């Protein structure tokens, strides 16, 4: 199929429809507005439902209801809205309902700004709301990948009965790139015998996250943890010139694109640099990261935050290699030149060592 030029947010929305999503509940917030706008037009054309909710909180609770009723359903927002949704997200995780939540990140904290950022990393990969729970978190780096990950996101949500987050940023949402929209029409493959559809000829189904008996609640938590452990088989990543890399850059999403350009420029100058790009942020591709950093004397994360990914990289490398941070925030985007300077600084520092 021929490629078309599409904005990230619109391509993602179209991909959701092609993945069989027929229900969207959301609330306007920049820089993700093209997603609800596109779906407001497209969903009715395919017999779907678009509802603009009165609040982010209402939107995520509509997702809860629709997911509990057995539907393929999604919502999208950006930082401040995702914070409001946390109540609903923890209920969805607790009640084990499948859905997709898109966060097109902007700068924070508070109202912050509307320019791209990656400062919601912790919120996304560590749970986000109250209680012990995890989301599956996928981080695309191109418009094509935004498309390709949507079908996977819905399938993973169904398979694990768990919310899946697509963690993008304002650049990915707003930029246009050629994209191939696959013809394959994903259909819902997973049966949902637990869904509330009316108790016809069976005993009632109940969707709840309430377990008043602590023995039962602990059992429920242990069951959830087993599920999160099982998710480790779903890790996704990209290696770029890491085989002989003495300095490995680590970044996801937009930052990884910038880091990749820095790798090429470093190589031109004879520096053995490489890029490790986690695509699944939870589960984190620990083994692949360790493999990619085998030859590394230095690891440098490139992120649009004051240092969030860097903590997971240090932890997953088990503190065996020095891991440095290059972060820009508030909507400021790292440049290839500044990343390259940082690379040279560490290569020339004489410090480092301690291979894996």
């Amino acid at each position, binding site marked *: 199929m021929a490629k078309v030029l599409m904005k990230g947010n619109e391509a993602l929305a179209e991909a959701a429809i092609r993945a069989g999503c027929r*229900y969207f*509940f959301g609330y306007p917030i920049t820089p993700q507005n093209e997603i609800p706008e596109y779906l407001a037009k497209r969903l009715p054309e395919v017999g779907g*439902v678009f*509802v603009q*909710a*009165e*609040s982010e*909180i*209402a*939107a995520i*609770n*509509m*997702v*809860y*209801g*629709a*997911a*509990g*009723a*057995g*539907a393929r*359903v999604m919502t999208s927002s950006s930082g401040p809205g995702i914070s409001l949704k946390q*109540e*609903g997200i923890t*209920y969805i995780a607790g*009640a084990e309902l499948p859905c997709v939540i898109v966060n097109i990140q902007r700068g924070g904290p508070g109202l912050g700004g509307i320019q791209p950022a990656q400062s919601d990393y912790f919120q996304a990969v560590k749970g986000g709301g109250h209680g012990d729970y995890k989301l599956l978190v996928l981080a695309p780096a191109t418009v094509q990948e935004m498309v390709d990950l949507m079908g996977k996101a819905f399938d993973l949500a169904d398979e694990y009965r768990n919310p899946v987050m697509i963690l993008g940023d304002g650049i990915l949402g707003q930029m246009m790139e050629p994209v191939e929209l696959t013809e394959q029409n994903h259909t819902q493959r997973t049966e949902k015998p637990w869904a*509330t*559809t*009316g*108790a*016809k*000829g069976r005993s*009632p*189904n*109940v*969707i*709840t*996250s*309430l377990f008043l008996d602590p023995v039962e609640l602990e059992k429920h938590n242990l069951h959830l943890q087993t599920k999160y452990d099982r998710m480790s088989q779903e890790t996704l990543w990209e290696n770029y010139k890491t085989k002989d890399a003495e300095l490995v850059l680590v970044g996801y999403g937009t930052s990884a694109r910038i880091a990749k350009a820095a790798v090429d420029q470093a190589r031109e100058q004879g520096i053995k640099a490489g890029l490790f790009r986690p695509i699944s942020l939870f589960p984190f591709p620990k083994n692949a990261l360790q493999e990619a950093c085998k030859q590394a004397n230095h690891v440098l994360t490139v992120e649009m935050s004051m240092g969030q990914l860097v903590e997971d990289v240090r932890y997953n490398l088990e503190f065996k290699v020095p891991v440095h941070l290059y972060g820009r925030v508030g909507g400021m985007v790292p440049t290839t030149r500044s990343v390259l300077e940082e690379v040279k600084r560490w290569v020339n520092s004489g410090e480092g060592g301690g291979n894996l």
Partner: protein
Amino acid sequence: MRPVFHRPEALTAIKTHYCPGCTHGIIHRLIAEVIDELGVREETIGVSPVGCSVLAYSYFNLDMQQAAHGRAPAVATGIKRVHPQKVVFTYQGDGDLAAIGTAEIVHAAARSEKITTIFVNNAIYGMTGGQMAPTTLLRQKSMTSPKGREAAPQGYPIRVSEMLATLDGAAYIARVSVHNPQEVSKAKKAIKTAFEYQMAGIGFALVEVLSTCPTNWGCTPTESLKWLVENMLPVYPLGVKKMQREVSI
């Protein structure tokens, strides 16, 4: 011999946790009788709230979802949009619906979601131990208005039914009570109408049911019924507040 009184099919045999003299049990039964009479038990999905009736999903013999505090109308919206042919109702208390969930109920009514809401108003937070509710009366004592609620600084009680009746999307709004057999009978009729409104596809329907809370009011069950009549009825007048049209299905 034919039994003349039995448990509605829409109720389970599970013993409820409600306090003696609490009227939740009556209201549960009325809803269950209506669902049985309308023949929609296997087509109905209920949404339970946070509060005393959080465990309603154990007492109704129906598919049920448990919603976060105040969010039942949003959850019900999600369910109904997926299953427009099914019957969807929420069961909510006054703290849930008239405080933390005010936005959700107002906008569900404004969108005229084809759902039915049973709103149980006992003028207090029951489950958490008797704190002031948005519907707590002036001068009524509670754990967080120990000297009695004062308009300043604690604000006035909210008349939810009258407020919602002003919305174009509200199709049927009624306030009933269950303090004596006649009123119980009227309450059942209103609840039935509210479900019929949904089934006829007319729009949003809500029945506010004045209810007692002997435990947190500090009264006996009998005193509670008297307290409701003397104190709540003057502030919360009974009757149909909005009826878009007559309905028969």
